[in-house]
Every structure is written in C-alpha cells, then in structure tokens.
C-alpha cells in the first residue's frame, strides 16, 4: 500500500451495505453507505442520539460506546467493521427504570454540568470498571483521560467512579 493512497479512479457509487449489529440487546439491521461511522449509524440511522459527536477525530471521548463490552471511540470506526458485534450505548446502561450505578453516582456526586460529555464519560467509566485496572484516584484520572469535559466536572467524575468502585469492593456483587 502506498503511503498516500490518492485515487485516480472515479469515486464508486454509494452502494449501501447491510450491517447487522446487536444494539443495547436488540438485533438491528441497517442498509448504509460503507463509509458510515459507527457514531453516525447510531445517531442518524438508529436515532440513538445519546452518544455525542464532539470532535469526530478521536480527541474527546464524547462518542465512547462499548463494543463487546470494551470501550471504543465510535467516531473512528465504521459501522460495517463492527458487523455481528454487540454495541452498548448510554441508552443501554440502565435496566428499565433502574439507573446504572454509575448513572446514580454521577447524579449523587454532581459529576456533570452541561452534560454533553456525560454519555461518553458513563460508557468509558463502565469500560474502566470492566477492565479492572484502576486502584487509586490517580489511576481513575489516567484511565479516564480519554474523556474531555469542557465544564471541568472532573472532581465529581472521579468521585462518582470511586464511589461505585468502593461499593463493589464492599458488596462484592458487580452491578
């Protein structure tokens, strides 16, 4: 592959491709252009607008979702590349009317102001808990550094994640 592929061929016609994803537990099949990012597929084609577009370049974390349980930036992958996988967005964190413990903790710890970064923060925090690498508050800060908050709600975000980690450690039952 050349370093700078610049095509001389004409652009191909936008032929839609079929993509099947399990989104928040439900199987969804889409007919979309192959260059549709996972983020645009969620927001524009599935009306799941909880996941936010901040930078569209991997620099802010607002688009964080879980794919097969792992946190990724939905803006830097194609929906078609995630064929057959399971995607969890902020809309899929709660169980019915019961908020996810992280959502409750974010409210209790005042972990947001405008809320634009919050869906990404929540999904990223869920990924962090699943990874199980964070021990200290400094670890939480480092491992949440992929999520920028322009309102500067960081102290509340760290406190919220810490409180869920503490509760899990004492209860022993993972939410």
């Amino acid at each position: 592959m050349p370093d700078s592929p610049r095509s001389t061929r004409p652009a191909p016609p936008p032929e839609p491709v079929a993509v099947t994803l399990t989104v928040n537990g439900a199987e969804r099949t889409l007919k979309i252009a192959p260059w549709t990012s996972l983020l645009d597929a969620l927001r524009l084609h599935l009306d799941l607008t909880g996941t936010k577009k901040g930078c569209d370049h991997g620099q802010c974390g607002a688009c964080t979702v879980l794919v097969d349980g792992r946190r990724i930036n939905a803006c830097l992958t194609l929906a078609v590349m995630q064929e057959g996988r399971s995607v969890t967005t902020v809309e899929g964190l709660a169980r019915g009317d019961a908020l996810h413990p992280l959502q409750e903790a974010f409210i209790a710890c005042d972990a947001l102001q405008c809320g634009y970064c919050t869906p990404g923060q929540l999904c990223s925090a869920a990924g962090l808990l699943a990874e199980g690498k964070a021990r200290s508050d400094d670890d939480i800060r480092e491992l949440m550094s992929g999520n920028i908050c322009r309102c500067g709600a960081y102290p509340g975000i760290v406190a919220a994640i810490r409180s869920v980690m503490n509760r899990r450690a004492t209860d022993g039952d993972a939410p």
Partner: protein
Amino acid sequence: MRPFRYARAAHLDDAIAAGSESGTAFVAGGTNLFDLMKADVLRPDTLVDVSRLPLDTIDDTPDGGLRLGALARNADTAYDPRVQSRYPMLARAILAGASPQLRNMATNGGNLMQRTRCYYFYDTATPCNKRAPGSGCGAIGGVNRIHAILGASPSCIAVHPSDLCVALAALAATVRVTGPDGERTVPFAAFHRLPGDTPERDTTLEPGELITAIDLPPQGFAAHSTYLKVRDRASYAFALVSVAAALDIDGGTIREARLALGGVAHKPWRDSGAEAALAGKPATPATFAEAAGIVLRDARAHDHNAFKIGLARRAIVRALTEAAGGKHP
C-alpha cells in the same frame, strides 16, 4: 469522508491480493486512517479490512522471545502478563500513548504505520512534501514547535509520533511482513526511514505488503528499563520528547545499554554510539550525561523547538537514572 469500496479480508492471501491494487488501503483499528480520511489527507477508493485476520495473538517464540501479532490491540499487548513481566518498558510505552478507548482499537501493525502529527501534513490548504510531494514544507519557516531536532532534511522536519515504536527500537525488535513476493523480516532500525528527499515514504514497507507480527528478542531488560514521556499535558497527548532506556547492570557497571528517543526525528531515534559509550562504564549521572551529549551531538533546532534539545538532554539522564534503579551510586 469520500466514498470508497469496502471489503473484509477473510484470509491473508485475499488481503495481499487486494492490497496490491493502487488506491487501496488496509484498515485495522482505523484510528489513524479514518482521522486522515476525514481530513481529506488520505483518499483511498478501496478499503481492505484486515482487522479480523487471525494475526491477533501474542505467542512465545522458541528462542525465548515473544511474537506480537500485528492485529493484537495495543491495550491487549500492554496488559499481556508476559509483556508486563518480561518487557515492562514496552508496556509502559504503550500505556503512555493515546487513551484507553484508542488503545482498545489501535493495533500493533497500525501503530507502526501511523503518520506524523505535523499540522501542515493535516492541513490540505498548506504545502507539505509528505502529503503532496514537491509542494514544499509548511513547517520550515512556519510553526515548528513539535518538529525534529535530529535527522531532518530540507524537505521535511516531521517527527514520528509513536510511543510503542520507541520501545520496539530500543528492544531491537524485528518486523515480519508478507507481500505479493512472500514473507520477509525487517530489523526495526530499518523499518522507518529518514525523510531525505522522499518524505512521502515513512517506512521501507513496499506497496501491498502487510505487517503480520513483531518479534521481540529474549532480552527484555526487565530489571533496569523505563519509558519516559514528556508532553504538554499529563495524559492523552503526543510526546514532545520521549526516552526508552534499558540497562543490563552488573555490580554497578553497565554491561549493555539501549537508548532510543521519540518526538525528535522522522523515525524512532536509536543511537548505538551512545549505547556503546555506556557499556563498561559505572551507572552514574556523569556517564548518563555523556551519553546524552553523544545522542544530541548533531541536534539542530528550528525557530520554535530549541527547547527540545535541552529537554531531551535532561530526559535522557532522568530515564537512564530511573532505569538504573533510581540509585545514584
């Protein structure tokens, strides 16, 4: 993004066959490719998705080394228990890069192939010899705070942005590559290039060749090594200067040393002269300062990056001191 065709490669052979067509690009994690396609810097008309090829494992090699699959994720590589215990400098370098989300996506092969973060390379309204050969260099005479102090050319003063690659350079890894003509191996030092008058080529990889794995030799310098990254903020930023330092110490005397820098040149900058000068010497600050002087003997600043020379000097001494165990014998 401009329209393109998409094909998922089921087998290595399919990927190689498709990849040698002009206008075709491989995609693995997508974290660098889609960024650059959105900026209209790269315009492939066909993407070959190699991310599901079975090249994502990390395996012990018969010689006692470790083979890192090209499609193993950066996060899975950094957290692999064998990498953590036998190559802690590498784990540290990977975890110093990008963010947890990006490391979950980014692959080892893609990390080697990532392009420079030079702002002019990204801005299609400005000249850039790397993006548009022959158009000039926007950074020379422009804003060049993040640019090279070593090995640059009148055509290009960009730096390679990877952290992982700096540790791989210090470890003397080997890159395994498969192309239309079969398989070959490339010593890490010969994988990335200096810009010369062809800055459009970052690496010695030929068109259509796919990285399949990166082999680590048995010697991981686990007892005395570190990766030090200096950047504008504490996390989630590229290196201004970084240092991979590894020592094999016997009773206070350095038996063997490895030293590579990031953020300073068009390729991960390993200096075997400085390594040779460290060998046989006591592991002291004076020895480390001498090595730093050797690495930076030909350093040359541009308008806004003179600070990198002093920063690199201090970072080398600090990294070697930390690698030696923080002891000042």
